[in-house]
């Protein structure tokens, strides 16, 4: 614990042996493909599959009529058809499925399905969608959630007032491993699904409803996952592959290509925000007013929870006595939006951090000092009235990044290729100016607002070939972040045995909850710890019986049972014999609570995590090109169980935030996605990423196992606003929309 053992899957991944979902293969398998709607909104009059069925090699074609159970799924509300029957509500909505012996055969057959659409007008402007007379995407209206938050004096005034409008475009998770799965029909009439996902049990629940089958017959197994970032919380191939497998009685593999992947998962909500801060002349915040509209697209997914975050955490880690916040999530005929790393806090941070800079300028403070003056501290209440009851090192994190060494100034000798755009030899540095920006954030860890957020762990301890072996079985998804290593580390620490086997992840054990909200080390880590403690208690009980001493006088130390003064009494092998000890524990963190619907007040969150970034950019103001020179960060992780993995998460998370500030956007016009490819949807390359200095604080959270604090999301939240601030500092332009494009920089 606290060191960084190598990840057990590392060798498999560098030799090419690790089986990702798209690598799965079965004798006799066929390929499934999805036919998707070309229209953002249409009525389906008729579907004719007869032509597709005549294509040689085609095994079956399915439409909505073939869904045996409920033709509806969804994380929070089951509002999304497995296959569209009457209406399609977004471009790319699944309409029919084909299975064939070759993926190309299946695609060609799908192209021969004739769907008679009556094209309907699409609601694509989220602000317009909120009008009472706007056509409803679903009945009875377009509001998914309105979060209303009122705290303190609603009529408060202040001598210094700053306000701005801000917009954030639609970002994509862009995990590299495509959505894939293999469904294998089973002899009991059920199905085994091997799939890349973030939460096996929530998938299982939805699949069972759609198939009309009980959970015993729908078994899920986690395959190798090539990144997730929220994009695998909702179903993709899951039900479709199962339907095809059950119908054809053959194993069915489905794997999206990159274009389909852009249609096959939910994205980060685009946001329009109007923010106002009032402050004393010394910069102390008096009040904040904010209105945020998140475009949820055609189906609810996790929009309601994203609105919860954008509202309750939407003003950043600051002490603000008087608050009025309205956050809305709305339906449109745009692509559905849901979970992505940072979950509602990413959008809000661009607005509150830009406004803090405005406030700094208005009162004549520097940008670090204004944040330190208002930064929350342990014991403060946040805007929902919740007491921050563990470390809140806002001022300290900012000081750390401010004090880190700056990158060297550019000089005549600097390599030309390090200039913005200059790998293309576009400049010799004439129009290049440098800017520095800061941002700070806090993020809730785990699921909030009263959600029953638990994880299950089964731990087994036995002697195998004269050696003690512990096996950990959880259903918690490893998506690349390193959870398997952490499970091993915790088990080694608690039981003192060297050999820890992590059982393959599947639904044969209770739910591990979602690999999201930065919660797995906390919650599944907590479950593994608790299960180990339960195993240890049983072992000591048994030893007590053997030795005729009270269990309270015994300890497990390595593979020995020792007494109070450390004297070795017997070996673990003697106590266990051939009889394994196995315990299964469901573990919950402290409860959270729903917020008051009128005031938005309540203890909504279980834990908060804090991070700060400083960005340094060079901007070619003539060409509008940006090069990030440095992106430095400090984060409080509570306790770094695996320091290397923690830093790795901070690097990767920071890159995603930077990507949103500079280049990442799904461009949607009139409901149509214009850039569903890695040619046109740009993610940062190794040339775009600057070197990063990372400082990690470890202020243990007394309420969390080992004091851990979630790690994965904060870096994605504070890095983008820091980059945007640095570009504003370099150019002097307000730049109230991200991603910041060259024309925003060069335009007037």
């Amino acid at each position, binding site marked *: 614990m606290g060191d960084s053992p190598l990840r057990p899957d590392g060798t498999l991944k560098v*030799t090419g042996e690790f089986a990702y979902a798209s690598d799965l293969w079965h004798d006799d398998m066929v390929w499934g493909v999805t036919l998707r709607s070309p229209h953002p909104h249409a009525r389906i009059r008729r579907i004719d599959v007869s032509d597709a069925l005549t294509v040689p090699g085609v095994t079956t074609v399915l439409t909505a009529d073939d869904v045996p159970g409920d033709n509806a799924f969804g994380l929070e509300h089951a509002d999304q058809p497995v296959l569209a029957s009457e209406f399609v509500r977004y471009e790319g909505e699944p309409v029919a499925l084909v299975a064939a012996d070759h993926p190309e055969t299946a695609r060609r057959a799908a192209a021969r399905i004739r769907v008679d659409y009556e094209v309907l007008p699409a609601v694509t402007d989220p602000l317009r969608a909120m009008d009472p007379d706007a056509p409803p995407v679903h009945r009875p209206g377009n509001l998914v959630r309105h979060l209303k938050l009122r705290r303190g004096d609603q009529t408060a005034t202040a001598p210094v007032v700053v306000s701005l409008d801000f917009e954030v475009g639609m970002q994509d998770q862009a995990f590299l491993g495509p959505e894939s799965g293999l469904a294998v029909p089973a002899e009991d009439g059920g199905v085994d699904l091997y799939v890349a996902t973030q939460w096996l049990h929530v998938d299982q629940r939805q699949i069972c409803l759609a198939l009309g089958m009980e959970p015993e017959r729908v078994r899920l197994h986690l395959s190798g996952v090539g990144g997730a970032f929220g994009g695998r919380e909702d179903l993709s191939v899951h039900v479709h592959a199962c339907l095809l497998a059950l119908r054809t009685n053959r194993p069915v593999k489905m794997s999206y290509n990159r274009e389909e992947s852009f249609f096959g998962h939910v994205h980060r909500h685009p946001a329009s925000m109007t923010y106002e801060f009032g402050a004393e002349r010394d910069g102390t915040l008096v009040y904040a007013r904010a209105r945020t509209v998140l475009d949820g697209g055609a189906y609810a997914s996790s929009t309601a929870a994203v609105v919860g975050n954008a509202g309750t955490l939407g003003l950043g880690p600051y002490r603000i006595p008087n608050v009025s916040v309205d956050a809305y999530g709305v339906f449109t005929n745009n692509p559905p939006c849901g979970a992505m790393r940072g979950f509602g806090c990413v959008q809000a941070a661009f607005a509150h951090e830009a406004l803090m800079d405005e406030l700094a300028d208005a009162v004549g403070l520097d940008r670090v000092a204004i944040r330190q003056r208002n930064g929350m501290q342990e014991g403060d209440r946040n805007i929902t009235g919740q007491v921050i009851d563990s470390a809140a090192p806002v001022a300290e994190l900012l000081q750390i990044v401010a004090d880190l060494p700056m990158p060297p100034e550019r000089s005549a000798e600097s390599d030309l290729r390090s200039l913005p755009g200059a790998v293309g030899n576009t400049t010799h540095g004439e129009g290049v100016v440098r800017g520095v920006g800061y941002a700070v954030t806090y993020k809730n860890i785990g699921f909030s607002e009263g959600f029953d957020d638990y994880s299950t762990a089964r731990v087994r301890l036995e002697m195998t070939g004269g050696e003690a072996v512990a096996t950990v079985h959880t259903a918690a998804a490893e998506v690349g972040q390193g959870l398997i290593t952490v499970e091993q580390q915790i088990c080694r620490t608690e039981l003192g045995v060297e050999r820890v086997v992590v059982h393959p992840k599947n639904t044969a054990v209770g739910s591990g909850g979602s690999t999201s909200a930065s919660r797995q080390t906390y919650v599944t880590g907590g479950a593994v710890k608790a299960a180990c403690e339960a195993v240890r208690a049983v072992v000591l009980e048994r030893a007590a019986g053997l030795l005729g001493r009270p269990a309270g006088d015994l300890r497990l130390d390595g593979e020995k049972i020792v007494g109070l003064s450390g004297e070795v009494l017997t070996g673990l092998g003697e106590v266990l014999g051939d009889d394994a000890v196995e315990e299964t524990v469901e573990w919950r963190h402290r409860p959270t609570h729903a917020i008051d619907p009128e005031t938005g007040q309540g203890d909504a969150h279980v834990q908060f995590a804090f991070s700060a970034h400083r960005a340094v950019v060079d901007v070619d103001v003539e060409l509008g090109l940006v090069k990030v020179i440095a992106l430095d960060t400090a984060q409080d992780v509570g306790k770094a169980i695996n320091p290397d993995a923690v830093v790795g998460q901070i690097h990767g998370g920071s890159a995603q935030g930077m990507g949103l500030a500079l280049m990442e956007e799904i461009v949607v016009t009139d409901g149509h996605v214009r850039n569903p490819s890695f040619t046109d949807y740009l993610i940062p*390359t190794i040339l775009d990423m600057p070197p990063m200095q990372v400082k990690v604080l470890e202020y243990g959270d007394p309420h969390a196992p080992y004091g851990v604090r979630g790690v994965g999301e904060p870096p994605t939240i504070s890095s983008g606003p820091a980059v945007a601030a640095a570009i504003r500092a370099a150019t002097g332009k307000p730049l109230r929309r991200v991603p910041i494009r060259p024309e925003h920089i060069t335009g007037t």
Partner: protein
Amino acid sequence: MRITTTVNGTEHEVDDVWPGESLLYVLRERMGLPGSKNACEQGECGSCTVYLDGEPVCACLVAAGQAQGREVRTVEGLADGDRLHPVQEAFVECGAVQCGFCTPGLLIAAHDLLARVPHPSDLEIREALAGNLCRCTGYEKILDAVRLAADRQARS
């Protein structure tokens, strides 16, 4: 059609290859070598990078027929039996592998760079790997890994 290709030193013969299939598809689905990854199949991400007659290429952009009679080396052919290649070792040790989907392609690209330029500068590493996207790591630890592999190769 029938295609005969030497992959990682072993001759593979595959039948019934449809002319539209890519080398990547044939490696992954017909030869049982899924190590090279299929992240975009558009030549944009580098996950499918393999050597074709010693040149790194995107296998997704090579028509299967173009590999007829040629030599392919994939990530499965980097290790020497059970001994990892120093580049592979360095990726594991430096934490350059998270989800690992980009890793096979990056390994080939890094392997190729170090064969051409034993002591690359950071800028040279960045330029050489700019065609390989990674969504998880932020690239810092990938740079560490390439530097470490270069050091080790220099010493061995």
